[in-house]
């Protein structure tokens, strides 16, 4: 083991953060780029299913809250791209990887938002699941990522509260609104559980990530946390729990629950969900349509620079 490697492992062991200029194993860097860019892409693609309802939000207040939330997500994306850039990859490279399918984003955003209640369910369940994961990542070993998570968690927890509050308004509203809420819960509950990834035994990146403390808790542990915390929230809403097999296990101190539909999980990850193609096409179309704008900006800046150089000469 080289002295650099020893020092790296010592830091990991001592819970010291790894910073951009520190030496790190190539695989650590690669693993982090994969995880952080995937996280950034999720924020960016996540704008689409929620953005789908900005123009149809049912009240001005909800419209404003949703706009503000989607704007926060874009901000998180920006922040995470910057964190990934500290590892020596550019934003344009990451965007290319997203658009060519080389980089993934959270599968949850390949599910369609069909009713207003889906927006509420995303805020409550999807942001809720994201927080469980991100709270754990506040202790991740890479400094810029850990600091980013601390900031992002604050906003996500606001999102989760507003999502739940929007869900509550529906669940306590008219019979039609309540049915809409139940339908959204039934559709988004399972994909939200899938957000934690495959079982630990089937997770390709888990072991090394745990050793290097990029990940701090396993997929299954985090998923269990989320299952447990959601039970009471569903009760308060007065909705039916989507899992008929949910049962408190005194011995484990946790709820037992149905296994997930892993065929669906892999199918969506592999690009065959309801919206996989649509999400990427949307991103590519906006990016391509924006090309002349980016070109104009570059040309304008270039003209300005030339003028300044001329004036200085």
């Amino acid at each position, binding site marked *: 083991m080289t002295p650099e490697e020893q020092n790296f492992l010592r830091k990991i062991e001592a819970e010291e953060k790894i910073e951009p200029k520190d030496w790190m194993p190539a695989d650590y860097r690669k693993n982090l780029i994969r995880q952080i860019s995937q996280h950034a892409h999720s924020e960016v693609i996540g704008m689409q299913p929620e953005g789908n309802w900005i123009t149809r939000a049912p009240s001005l207040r909800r419209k*404003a809250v949703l*706009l503000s939330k*989607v*704007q926060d997500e874009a901000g998180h994306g920006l922040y995470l791209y910057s964190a990934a850039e500290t590892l020596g990859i550019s934003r344009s490279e990451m965007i290319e990887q997203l658009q060519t399918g080389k980089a993934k984003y959270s599968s949850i955003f390949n599910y369609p938002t069909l009713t207003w209640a889906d927006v509420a369910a995303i805020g409550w369940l999807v942001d809720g699941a994201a927080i469980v994961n991100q709270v754990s990542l506040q202790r991740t070993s890479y400094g810029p990522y850990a600091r980013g998570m601390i900031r992002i968690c604050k906003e996500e927890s606001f999102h989760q509260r507003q999502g739940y509050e929007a869900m509550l308004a529906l669940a306590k509203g008219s019979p039609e609104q309540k049915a809409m809420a139940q339908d959204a819960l039934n559709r988004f509950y399972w994909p939200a559980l899938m957000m934690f990834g495959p079982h630990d035994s089937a997770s390709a990146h888990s072991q090394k990530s745990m050793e290097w403390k990029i990940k701090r808790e396993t997929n299954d542990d985090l998923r269990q946390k989320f299952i447990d915390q959601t039970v009471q929230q569903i009760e308060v809403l007065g909705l039916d729990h989507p899992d008929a097999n949910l049962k408190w296990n005194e011995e484990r101190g946790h709820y037992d629950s149905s296994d997930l539909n892993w065929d669906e999980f892999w199918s969506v990850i592999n690009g065959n969900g309801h919206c996989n193609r649509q999400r990427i096409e949307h991103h590519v179309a906006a990016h391509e349509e*924006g090309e*002349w704008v980016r070109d*104009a900006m570059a040309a304008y800046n270039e003209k300005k620079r030339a003028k300044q150089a001329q004036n200085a000469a």
Partner: protein
Amino acid sequence: MSDAIKAATLEYATRLGDDSVVLGHRISEWVSYGPFLEEDIAYGNVALDYIGRARMFYTYAAELADDGRTEDDFAYMRSDREYRNLLLMEMPKGDFAYSQVRQLFADAYYTLVLPELLQSKDETLSAIAAKGIKETKYHLRRSRDWVLRLGDGTEESHKRTQKAVDALWGYTHEMFDMDETEQMLADAGIAVDVSKLRDAWHKMVSDVLIEATLTVPEDSWAVRGGRTGYHTENLGHMLTEMQITHRSYPGCQW
């Protein structure tokens, strides 16, 4: 407040609310469609300001109406024939140049209108203006910068931007029209006399266009009708989308 003034103020607040909600909605259509991520954020920001402003105007209108209606009744339960927004605000989002030129026209307008509204004897209108002035400073800086970049960028961006300027110019004239309602309120020191602002607006906008190497159009045509509910075909489609959820579940709370 006399009944006539009260009714006119209600109408005026509704008009200003309509302008804000329609423009805010149009801007919000850009979210996730911007040329890069920073622009998605900026669009979200500006849309949010306008939706916020619409809520303040409508809330005041509802207060004056005092008939149980809320801000949402004003936004969601009126048809395009009842809407009183300026036509410029309802034009579709078009391409990035089109939206930024519209924004420059609107931002220059509010840069002039809001300080006048701040002087209004109506305290609520004045307070809404105070908040809007701060936002508008940022809005104008952004739309001005973009029109400069696009006008003086590439051949393509120049062409698109000039096309947008020419296409939208004829919708700007009615922004400076006064009718009886607004004249009465202006005489009472409540509304802004927008007819006095055209020259300043023309200069402000022309300065930007010329610096952007664009041509300032001749005043050869004008389309009018927003304040009387005589809209373009665009507003009906916009409201159909905007109002669908609210109207599909009558009487619900959200």
